[in-house]
């Protein structure tokens, strides 16, 4: 077993589970039927990827835990998703921007993972890239239409940028475990990922007539298990069923 690899795989799995969960909260509440299908579609893509990653984590750990133990039966401090993905939906503009930020990062991540020295992750990258590329396209088109839309939609989009941009730095944070993986050719160079991410976001922002805000300081902590207040409520909902009815199946 490789402890650093396990550590990073769990981080990536957590990003996907939490991101998928946030999107799933829109199910039945979307502004229109078309998006009511679209957001849960994307949620299912992300949760599917999370399942593969948790199963791999369980295999790496080799202590008899299952994907469900990882997904549902840990405490808040044990989740290591970046803070961006746990930010509340707030409104449709916030949600589309949050997903665009995350999906753009993952798109370039999975693209470079085709060359990864880790066979499981490299195999997953070929499935995931098709799913995540659509997320970038869909959320990107919405950001453009809301940013360059009506006065109200532009205002909401610009509020979302102010609120969420400080959380983007954490995507590119490299801790000891991740550095270990980068050195071994498992994970891509994050400085390069950041350039690719920035170029894509810049191009979309030009079309959306949005300006990048000055970031006073980056909001980080999720990778160390230090979450925002909203995370407790999210976990309460996510974990309710498996905790109230252990081993439930249907």
């Amino acid at each position, binding site marked *: 077993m490789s402890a650093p690899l396990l550590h990073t795989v769990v981080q990536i799995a957590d990003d996907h589970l939490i991101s998928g969960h946030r999107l799933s909260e829109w199910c039945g509440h979307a502004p229109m*039927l*078309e998006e009511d299908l*679209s957001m849960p*579609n994307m949620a299912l893509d992300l949760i599917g990827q999370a399942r593969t990653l948790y199963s791999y984590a369980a295999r790496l750990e080799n202590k008899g835990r299952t994907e469900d133990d990882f997904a549902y039966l840990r405490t808040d401090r044990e989740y290591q998703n970046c803070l961006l993905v746990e930010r509340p939906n707030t409104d449709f503009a916030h949600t589309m921007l949050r997903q665009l930020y995350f999906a753009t990062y993952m798109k370039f991540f999975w693209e470079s993972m085709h060359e990864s020295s880790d066979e499981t992750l490299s195999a997953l990258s070929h499935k995931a890239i098709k799913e995540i590329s*659509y997320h970038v396209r869909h959320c990107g*088109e919405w950001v453009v*239409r809301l940013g360059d839309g009506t006065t109200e939609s532009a205002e909401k989009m610009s509020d979302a940028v102010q609120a969420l941009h400080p959380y983007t730095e954490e995507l590119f944070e490299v801790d000891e475990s991740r550095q270990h993986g980068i050195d071994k050719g498992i994970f891509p160079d994050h400085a390069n990922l950041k350039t690719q991410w920035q170029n894509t976001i810049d191009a979309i922002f030009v079309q959306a007539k949005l300006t990048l805000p000055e970031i006073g300081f980056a909001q980080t902590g999720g990778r160390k298990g230090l979450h925002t207040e909203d995370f407790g409520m999210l976990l309460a909902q996510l974990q309710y069923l498996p905790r109230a009815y252990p081993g439930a199946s249907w």
Partner: protein
Amino acid sequence: MSNEQNMPLWEVFIRPRTGLHHKHVGSLHAADSTMAMHAARDVYTRREEGDSIWVVASSHIHASDPKRSGENFDPASDKVYRHPSFYDIPDEVGHM
């Protein structure tokens, strides 16, 4: 949000697989053709229903007037000779 001005109606056509025709499957609301294409993909192809999508603004479709059904369609009802069913097919041809 889905008022007719900002979110007009689009008709969706899906081709189940190469070689078959695109078939009308339903409609949806979207701001423009790009978003209509996304919505069509999300609403109508989630269960592998097809490999190609057409979207057409509903306002571009001109429909026959139901009030004129009589003059449009009834005259065809007694022209059975227009069906190619009066030929003897030689046995050698087999199933056609």
